[in-house]
């Protein structure tokens, strides 16, 4: 469950300050698959980054599963990201020197509670359909496969919430469809909460709800 109150984000100071988020209030229930949509500069990526604890807002409150996430110290935030959140970037987010399996189990190695990290990583890679690609390096697989590896990595520590920042933006139609089908499957089969920023209108068919943004505000009207 994500609860956001009066979230404000300003860039710069004084006269040159730009208000990217102008007091956002929203709630995302556990198990929901939500898309955040809007034009470029509407503030959707800024919102996602703050929800994913990658950035700090200028003001407001973000509670994730009851935890006031913005009050956590830097180390605690990193720990929270590692254990409770998963993040899928737009592109090129894999570590080029690690093979598919290593990329996936990397966060699990850092999470010491996850002692069967290899087994878990293989299971997830099987789930995303990359069982036969575990020894390949990122440069040896397609863009769509890379995104599926990134999804597997985001899921390895069994996070409550998965954030995806335009995960299909750099993919062709077929690969995009595979990735979105995978999100849908994860959401339906595992009850995975997913918050995804997307530009593509056709992505609406995959999600439970769309949060429209315009000029730093939620515009669902």
């Amino acid at each position: 469950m994500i609860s956001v109150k009066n979230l404000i984000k300003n860039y710069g100071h004084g006269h040159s300050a730009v208000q990217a988020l102008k007091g956002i209030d929203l709630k995302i229930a556990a198990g929901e698959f939500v898309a955040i949509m809007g034009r470029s500069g509407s503030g959707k990526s800024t919102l996602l980054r703050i929800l994913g604890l990658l950035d700090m807002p200028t003001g407001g409150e973000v509670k994730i599963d009851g935890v006031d996430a913005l009050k956590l110290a830097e180390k605690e935030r990193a720990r929270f990201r590692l254990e409770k959140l998963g993040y899928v970037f737009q592109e090129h987010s894999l570590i080029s020197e690690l093979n598919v399996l290593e990329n996936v189990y990397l966060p699990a190695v850092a999470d010491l509670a996850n002692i069967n990290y290899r087994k878990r990583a293989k299971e997830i890679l099987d789930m995303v359909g990359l069982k036969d690609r575990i020894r390949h390096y990122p440069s040896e697989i397609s863009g769509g496969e890379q995104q599926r590896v990134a999804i597997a990595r985001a899921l390895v520590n069994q996070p409550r919430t998965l954030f995806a920042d335009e995960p299909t933006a750099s993919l062709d139609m077929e690969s995009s469809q595979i990735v979105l089908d995978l999100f849908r499957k994860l959401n339906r089969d595992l009850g995975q909460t997913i918050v995804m920023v997307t530009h593509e209108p056709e992505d609406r068919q995959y999600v439970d709800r769309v949060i429209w943004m315009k000029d730093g505000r939620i515009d669902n009207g």
Partner: protein
Amino acid sequence: MKTLLGNLKLAFFLAFKSMFKGNKWALGLIIVVMAFSFVNLIFTSSVISGVMATMDNQMINTVFSNVIISPREDKYYIERADEVEAKIRQISGVTETCSHLNSSGFIEYGWKEKGLPWDRVKSGNWNILGIDPAQEAKVTTIGHNMIDGQYLDETDTNSIVLGVEVAGGEKAQTSGFLTLGGVNVGDKVRVTYPNGIQREYTVKGIFRAREMMQADHLAFVTNREMVSVLGRPQFFNRASEILVRAENNGIEDSLAGELRSTGLDLEIRSWREYGGAYRSVISTFEIIGTIIGGTGLIVAAIVMFIVIYINVISKKRQIGILRAIGIPQNTVLGSYLIQALSYALLGIILGWFIIRLVLQPYFIFNPIDFPFGFLSLNIESSRIIGSAIALTAASVLAGLIPSWAVMRESIIKTLWGV
């Protein structure tokens, strides 16, 4: 503790994957740069140290030996020299001794062709040492450095051996007018001693001890000849100085102390006390060596800083991703420190092999012919260890600064540069 070990394990995993699964050429280049930085650090100081060691050895081997025993200031000679030598040889750490009966002498060559008596062409004043050739050969290496003719025999009375800087000629470093102008073996020279006695000698040999400041400016006659010149019986069994050879170089000071404790009423000094101008040359070299070493270390540290900085900057986005997915900041920082440390250690190991297997053998088989001796690298273990530690510390620091700078940036800036 568990968390620390886990983070350390992950840091090592990331570091080694980044190094060995990344660009092999880049890895090789970084290690080679590190290796040559290390070689540069060792090589320059080893050459300077080699110069100093060669000069030291030459002085010990050709002029002073390890310890020099001379009469007290109010006396000119050591009396009953053979008894003193016998006593000295009893001391532990002494291997051999030899005595010198010294005099100055005005040496002339081609005097028959000279015009006026004050015409100093092909003549000059030099120190002439009366020696026991057999005993001398056990203490100094002059006898092994003959470039022409032969060394003295104990029975020689009308022969003289000249240092190359006395004899002059092509092999001398000194300007021709300050030498005898090119005496050859078999030529006659005339020596006028301070007591007025004049002797003609046949030049039996010419030596080049490669100690151009002192040894190569000496002339040798036998002790028997010198005693006869200075006058028997007063000068029989007298010595101007006794040279003492130690088992090892470097124990001179303790050996001199031990000799003093025997109660000999003589001046006992380590060869270092006679170093004089040499010592100032050597201390100048030491200063130069320290400056070059320090500069080399700074250059090596800067090279490493640039190499590691480029490495970190080129992987800035990757650092951002690692932080974004929750890898602890210290683990990411640790992985870059481990990489820096590994580059340094691999570079040092490669550099060490270059020094030991290439440079050192090369200089052993092809020593540089310096005026004061054949120069080889003097690679001291302490210098290798010190340089390795300094270089490792510099590389860790060079790795820490850029990594820390990137780590201090926000994840957003690291990932997207905004």
